[in-house]
């Protein structure tokens, strides 16, 4: 990747550097450093807010006044397909404080429930794919060779596929369930993490302190976990959060376009937005069924992005030897 690859053979073992002293303390130090960062803090607050909302009904079941499974908004929130066509405006009573949307559903509680589904989907995808990507990327980055080549080919392959097109197609025409779609997306997503981890692992591997550790006789696995892992952490964590936002955007897009009958009435932010532009509303000034869930979605993508971008900045404080080129 980098043109300095050819000089790898020339690098000599040097005396232990400042970084050797730092290595054991890197993991905690990087967390400390990132917290001192406005972007990371505000991002963390916002993300935590959404996480809490998502988990709330596990702590207080039924707090939203639902009955039955939450995955069908019509039944859970007492809506109906043949609801009168006048949409409840903002400032309604009780749960209708943020207004109502199609099918007579109240916006606020459905939105809060929607966070749960959006988060569930994206957390599933990101956790699964990032773990796979982490393992494969670490291995490929550190050992190189055939595994590395395979990883590069696979990730290039996946990067060339229009994911939305695929997601749309498979989910609608083949009737994928929510869970099926999540799995399919995880399969498509892991190379993104794999590439990030692999690149960072390679550059860290080249750093002198790892060479010194190898000289001291540690086995490769020990080296991997003790030295490389903490250095990769900030980059990796940053990408995890940013991808959370991107995956949520994916599922919201698929739902907005009403492409999977299985989750048509599921509380989900994209779905809610599609209710907000349904034909009965066209040509009127009823903006809140569209805008309010939209802003709520934006809040989430903004929060995770700030958190991810803030974490990326902590990388600057890593080591000084490597930066002086």
């Amino acid at each position, binding site marked *: 990747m980098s043109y300095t690859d050819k000089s790898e053979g020339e690098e000599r073992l040097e005396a232990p550097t400042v970084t050797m002293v730092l290595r054991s303390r890197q993991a905690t130090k990087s967390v400390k450093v990132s917290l001192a960062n406005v972007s990371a803090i505000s991002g963390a607050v916002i993300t935590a807010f959404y996480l809490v909302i998502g988990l709330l009904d596990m702590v207080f079941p039924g707090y939203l006044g639902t009955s039955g499974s939450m995955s069908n908004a019509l039944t859970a929130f007492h809506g109906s397909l043949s609801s009168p066509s006048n949409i409840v405006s903002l400032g309604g009573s009780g749960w209708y404080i943020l207004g109502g949307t199609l099918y007579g559903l109240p916006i606020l509680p459905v939105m809060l429930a929607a966070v749960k589904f959006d988060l569930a989907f994206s957390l599933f995808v990101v956790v699964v794919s990032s773990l796979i990507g982490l393992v494969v990327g670490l291995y490929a980055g550190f050992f190189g060779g055939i595994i590395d080549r395979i990883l590069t080919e696979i990730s290039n392959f996946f990067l060339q596929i229009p994911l939305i097109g695929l997601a749309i*197609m498979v989910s609608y025409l083949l009737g994928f369930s929510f869970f099926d779609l999540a799995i399919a997306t995880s399969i498509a997503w892991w190379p993104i993490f794999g590439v990030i981890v692999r690149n960072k692992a390679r550059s860290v591997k080249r750093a002198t302190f790892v060479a010194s550790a190898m000289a001291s006789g540690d086995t490769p696995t020990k080296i991997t976990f003790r030295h490389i892992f903490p250095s990769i952490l900030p980059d990796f964590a940053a990408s995890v959060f940013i991808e959370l936002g991107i995956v949520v955007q994916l599922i919201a897009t698929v739902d907005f376009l009403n492409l999977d009958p299985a989750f048509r009435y599921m509380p989900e932010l994209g779905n809610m937005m599609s209710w907000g532009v349904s034909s009965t509303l066209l040509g009127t000034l009823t*903006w809140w069924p569209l805008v309010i869930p939209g802003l709520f979605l934006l809040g989430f993508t903004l929060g995770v992005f700030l958190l991810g971008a803030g974490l990326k900045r902590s990388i600057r404080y890593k080591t000084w030897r490597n930066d002086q*080129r």
Partner: protein
Amino acid sequence: MKSSLNIGKRVFIAVIELLALLIFLYAFLLSAEYTNRSMVLLQSAGTSMGLNQNSFAQFFYFVKDVFTGNWGYVASNYPTLGGFSVMAVIGFSLPQTIFLLAISLLVSVPIVILMGIGYSRRVNTTTRAASNLYIALGMVFPIFLVGAFLRFFLYNTSLIISEPTKNLPYWTFPTHIPVIDGLIHGNYAMASSGILVFIIPLLLMVFFSSSFMLQIYRSGILKSLNQGYLGSASSLGLPRWIVVRNYLMIKGSSELFRYIPTVMTSILTFEIVVEAIMTYRGLGWAFYESIITGSYFGAIFALFVFGIVIIISSFLSGIIRILTDPEASGGELYG
């Protein structure tokens, strides 16, 4: 010598990709048959698509159909074009997509280059901050959301423009691009409606494509800024325009080139979403409508055309890279 070997490699890759595409679409067809055989049979209109053979032999019929243009028909509930052949539907919609794509790229690339230059100063300046913000906005705002908001507030509220598509016939002839056809026929109402229909999709495409491309361009420039050779350019006292042009921009562009397949994929994804939301009757919209109406062949072949576009752009950019980029060494398949 090295070049011809590399070019051979790229041809080989393109062929493999084509094969993979065909296999995937075929697998999809098989699943579609499994879930809804009657619909599939209907849409093949009884043509010999090998539907009575076993799966393995059927594949060859499928490939033959792909290359002979026997692409089946769209479902009867497909708006206005119900029952038309898939080839015709794609033929009607492809020009609009190409038109939108071409003009978006033409506008985006200078934007990317201009904003990229903002990274050349040593310290964070307003241009750099602005470029970073541009990228951040592109990542935070989902494209469908911006499109939906725009469409709702611009058209539905009737405050600004009434829905432009209402003023146009479903298809214009001969090029199927309203602006151009309007000009050809001297029908300025058609031409201006054509422009109105085109504006919002263009803005959306330009913003999101350029934001994405800027990400890649920026990473190229930052890679260059971190390398020793930039430091040596400074210590040799080279004038700034040389540093910006030959060290930063060149690296940014080569990075962009290197990732053209990814860029094309993202742009086509944006295209599909934008067309679907804004009812812009291009291939993405045709794809969307195929999905909604359950036109299996429509979906398959629309995706096929998109896939071909990606494979060709990947192939071409690979060839160009081999011929011009000194860093594209022989070893890497994808560069």
